[in-house]
């Protein structure tokens, strides 16, 4: 079994492939932020308790402060920067904007990625399901209500545009 001081990894981030040489101890959060410039993901605690650093790895939400970048080798990572497409905000971002689901914005990328995962698996979550999904993301500004409303609104608009595009109006 080979081992080295530095490891070469291939990471796909928001669809773009990056080849990097990293120390094994470098956290995924730091590699994303400092090496690759995806500074949207924020560090709130560095011990997994606050959720600010949440990104998706192979479609699953993870605390990027608790994963070493080498563990994401060969995987697809999605950060908040991957939500908007061609300058158009994702319905989740639109809904957060509409409902003022943020104030300082520091925890927001973590909430967006967590909500994104929820809506991938559950297109019509109840309020309780939304609360359950977001229970690991801490916000110190909003008191959470506008965030819940934003996720509900996003679910609605994503569901209705899905039914439009699949022609279920007929």
């Amino acid at each position, binding site marked *: *079994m080979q081992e080295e001081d530095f490891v070469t990894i291939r990471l796909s981030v928001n669809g773009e492939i990056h080849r990097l040489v990293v120390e*094994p101890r470098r*956290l995924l959060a730091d590699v994303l932020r400092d090496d690759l410039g995806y500074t949207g993901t924020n560090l709130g605690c*560095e011990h997994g308790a606050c959720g600010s650093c949440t990104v998706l790895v192979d479609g699953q939400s*993870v605390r990027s402060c608790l994963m070493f970048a080498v563990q994401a080798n060969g995987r697809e990572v999605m950060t908040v920067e991957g939500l908007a497409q061609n300058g158009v905000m994702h319905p989740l971002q639109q809904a957060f904007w509409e409902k003022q689901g943020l104030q300082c914005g520091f925890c927001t990328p973590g909430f967006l990625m967590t909500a994104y*995962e929820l809506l991938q698996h559950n297109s019509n979550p109840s309020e309780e399901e939304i609360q*359950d999904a977001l*229970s690991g993301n801490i916000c110190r500004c909003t008191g959470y209500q506008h965030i819940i409303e934003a996720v509900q609104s996003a679910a609605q608009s994503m569901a209705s545009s899905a039914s439009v595009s699949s022609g279920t109006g007929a």
Partner: protein
Amino acid sequence: MKPPKFRYFAPKSVGEALALLAEHADEGRVLAGGQSLVPLMNMRLVHPDVLIDINGISELSFIEATNGGLAIGALTRDSTLTSDRTVAERLSVLSEAAHCVGHPAIRNRSTVGGSIAHADPAAELPAVMVALNAEIVARSRSGSRTISAQDFFKGYLTTDLKDGELLTEVRIPGLPPRSGSAFVEFSRREGDYALAGVAAVVTLQEDGTIVDARLGLCSVGPAPVRPQNAEALLRGQRPGNEAWTAAATAVASVIDEPLSDIHGSADYRRHLAGVLTKQALAGAAERAERNR
């Protein structure tokens, strides 16, 4: 809060992992979910010289139906436990308990094997394993052995795993007919470490009396507590508040080294253990009744 340096290995098979564990016995740690280990490293409370990342060993990730029960690979994620249908059908108490582990992003990474091997006193799965009479399979380069859950948890963050051993699976027997199970816990906030948690399994006779009861408690001692005195008391009783209250009192009496910290004193945890024992037994009995 950045982790200290370590040498990193990512074995692709159990055999490779065991070879590494043998070679780096005293300086190496296994990296599974990392949700307990990495915070400790970020805070520089632990400095493993070697990390053996087993996340690439796909053969460790499985859920198999066995003779009424389950065999679960060590790398099975807690999020899988909460959503898997076979688990829900056969041993729903496992899904219930897994759902209490932290939060969704934590559960996407945390593993069954990791939780059991780390043996945090507040961890839910160890208590459930004890209540379910699970068996833990540990492999090393010299072979494989099976340890009963009861014998596996030795004390605070201490298990029977020897240097060079890797926990590879847990085997849980099925529940007898007319059984029901439940897991309840209480924490300061949703998803926090439990101040007390109780797993209960109740099996009924055809006439509705209790033929067997099993309990496993977390957060009330350095290791999971299995209050056999309470279990003995319940056999032959009719399900109901009187039985639950008697069991709760018996449970409290065997909690002799509860944890105590800023979130809950020993007295409070002992009190909660009693309250939750009643709730868990009532829940398990209700489900057993539905299966009668």
